[in-house]
């Protein structure tokens, strides 16, 4: 799994690629968001374009990141969520928790 961040103004867009299946790899995402929070960032978009599927452990990593951002009084949006991940959100009723957008542009734009 790869995690790469680019700033769009004051919004951190975190691009994730590969399989989000839990284990040490998921720590990359948690650590990156924690680093950005520590630097004062409070607006996040997680771009899942490169993530075809996740399991419940990967879902847990997303929940962990969501909780960290909320605790820092920030906001997090997801974009480019595959049909398969969307189905997982639906089954677990997390569609009501995660704010999802069809594209990075839409997600970043939603902060304005």
């Amino acid at each position, binding site marked *: 799994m790869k995690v790469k961040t680019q700033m769009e103004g004051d919004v951190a867009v975190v691009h994730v690629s590969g*399989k989000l*299946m*839990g*284990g040490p790899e998921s720590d990359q995402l948690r650590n990156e968001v924690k680093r950005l929070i520590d630097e004062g960032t409070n607006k996040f978009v997680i771009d899942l374009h490169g993530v075809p*599927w996740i*399991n*419940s*452990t990967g*879902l*847990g*990593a997303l*929940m*962990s990141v969501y*909780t960290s951002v909320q605790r820092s009084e920030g906001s997090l949006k997801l974009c480019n969520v595959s*049909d*398969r991940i969307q*189905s*997982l959100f639906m*089954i*677990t*009723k*997390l569609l009501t*928790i995660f704010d999802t957008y069809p594209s990075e542009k839409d997600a970043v734009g939603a902060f304005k």
Partner: protein
Amino acid sequence: MPEPRDANGRLVLPSVLSELEKVDGLALECAKEAGLPEQEAMMVAIAVIEAVTNAIVHGNRFSPDRSVVVEYGCEPGCVRFTVHDEGEGFDLSCVWDPTSPDRQMECSGRGIYIMREVMDSVEFDMTDGTTVTMSKTT
């Protein structure tokens, strides 16, 4: 590229999460062979991935000395998977509903719920490790 299918419908895996990709291909292939529509085949793969994730993470605890055994079978309109680990088992009565308001923000505890939501039948046997048997019919 899906893993070549074993003639006996059996796949033995080491306890590492990278094996899930192999399991995903196998589950999708079986479900499609059974004639399940694409969306349902995808859901079956999601459920099987959860069973194997639990076997690797909670059952075998990533032990290199323990394996996960996946047995699979399909016939027109029906697919069946059995996932076995070598762990100590667990208390099914301690499994919570992860969609309840007080549990919704938890970072774990969704695997069994997902299996039960997706499959028609999910049964656990903990007499020797944990064996999950689940099936889905069109």
